[in-house]
């Protein structure tokens, strides 16, 4: 829900979009922080209108944050207090964008709704207000939610896990269409048992894919042997992803930035995901 100034209300409404009040204000200072699993919203509610403040104090009016994600059909309201507030939303309920509309609404039927600060057009007129009616609208916000394309797949698709027969170390092969990570036999068998769980999978990405990617990026940087890989699928995917993040395999810029940092960007915070999964596993036990 987004409210436009063209919407007419049958009583005075406090908002920057209307001139129904002379000097009163309803301001919201908003900040948001997006993590992998959550969107955290910090809101500071500032109200300057005696009448509305009294109504809130008497529970005849409430401050609500109306939240809607049209794409995923998510809509709810959260109650706010005057001053600082924190609310959060699970990312897996959202996609596209999240619309935030802070409002003050009547929490009961209000007879004789009146403010000394009403515009002169409403001088000495009071109103009967129905429960749920919007009395004030604060700054509205639209937060873009970008879902990564890979969220449906199990592991980054350019990697393939295979058994490293009779060898006790992990190795990475770069000559095929996919990057092949070879695990010693026992480790490979354990991987097979664990990969079905999303939580374990996040941990396995940190343990196996993350160091393998660092190895591949180091190889590309050290030997500049880019031509021999250019037609490989993994190279094209990796190059595209790097470009999205602002790096170019063909220029020398890769060496200027920490490979460790790039690998974390490509895998979208692997350590965060792994530690979050470990924390959740601990809680569930």
């Amino acid at each position, binding site marked *: 829900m987004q409210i436009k100034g063209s919407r007419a209300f049958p009583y005075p409404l406090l908002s920057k979009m209307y001139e129904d009040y002379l000097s009163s204000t309803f301001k919201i200072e908003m900040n948001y922080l997006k993590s992998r699993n959550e969107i955290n919203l910090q809101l500071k509610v500032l109200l300057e209108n005696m009448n509305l403040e009294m109504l809130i104090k008497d529970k005849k009016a409430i401050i609500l944050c109306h939240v809607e994600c049209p794409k995923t059909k998510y*809509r709810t309201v959260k109650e706010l207090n005057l001053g600082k507030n924190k609310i959060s939303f699970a990312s897996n309920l959202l996609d596209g964008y999240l619309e935030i509309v802070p409002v003050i609404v009547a929490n009961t039927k209000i007879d004789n709704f009146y403010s000394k600060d009403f515009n002169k057009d409403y001088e000495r007129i009071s109103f009967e207000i129905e429960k749920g009616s919007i009395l004030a609208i604060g700054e509205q916000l639209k937060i873009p939610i970008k879902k990564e394309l890979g*969220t449906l797949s199990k592991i980054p698709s350019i990697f393939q896990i295979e058994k490293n027969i009779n060898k006790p170390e992990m190795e990475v092969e770069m000559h095929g269409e996919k990057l092949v990570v070879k695990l010693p036999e026992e480790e490979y068998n354990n991987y097979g048992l664990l990969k079905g769980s999303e939580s374990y999978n996040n941990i396995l990405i940190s343990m196996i894919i993350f160091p393998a990617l660092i190895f591949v990026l180091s190889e590309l940087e050290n030997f500049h042997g880019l031509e021999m890989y250019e037609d490989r699928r993994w190279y094209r995917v990796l190059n595209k992803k790097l470009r999205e993040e602002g790096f170019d395999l063909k220029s020398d810029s890769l060496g200027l930035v920490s490979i460790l940092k790039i690998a974390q960007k490509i895998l979208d915070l692997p350590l965060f995901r792994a530690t979050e999964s470990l924390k959740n596993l601990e809680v569930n036990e």
Partner: protein
Amino acid sequence: MKIRFMKDAVVDELKRNISKNCSKYGQSDNSWVQNEWLKEFKHELPEFSLDLLKEKPEDTDFNNIKILYSNLKTITDSQACDERLWAGLCHDKFWNYMQYRWSISKVKETKEDSILNHYFFKQTGQRALMTNALARLWWVGRLTYDKNAEDPFILTEYLCKDLNGRGFPLFGSNFSNNKEVTKNFLYILMKYEEKNKLNREEFLEVIKRMNLWGGKIILDSLSKEELSRKILEFLKGSKNLIENE
């Protein structure tokens, strides 16, 4: 059970070439769909199949909503808005269901439109969730499932008596995005219908009135009792009006 979603580039490619591939969508098997177009979905799901047994395929909608939603309840809302997931299932695991329920030989719209609507997302936004053959089953389940009810699908069953006439206009309304409001709305009308008649036109009038109210009040802030009072007053008023005419 493992399910597979369709790769992004393949979705684009197939949508671009609908007219070229049109006849393939009338085939009883999907052998033309290549394995490399699909990718394994990360979650393991229970083994299940959809109901293809009724003479009129549309009569299976309620049962299939129950089957599909119960088995895919673990996917997130965000994943359930992803065209790749539903396009993959339509072309792969549930190809037989697609032939049974949305056979292109029986469609009123053009074959191309039918394929785009039912196998893919033709439109952007919420409408696509109600036109894709499998997404609609999941989303009607999602929006009507009441985990606290003795029969969690009681509202689904009520709405499925007229899914096209009542369900789709309901889910096209903004207030239906709030699942609590939607459930309250359906419970109120279901209860009303136990003692009164409520035809499709009247049901749609209540939806219109809800949208009108939503312009001035925050419907999400009303309790079930308060919403019930408003709707029943409106129904009483509109019935009196009809009788007086």
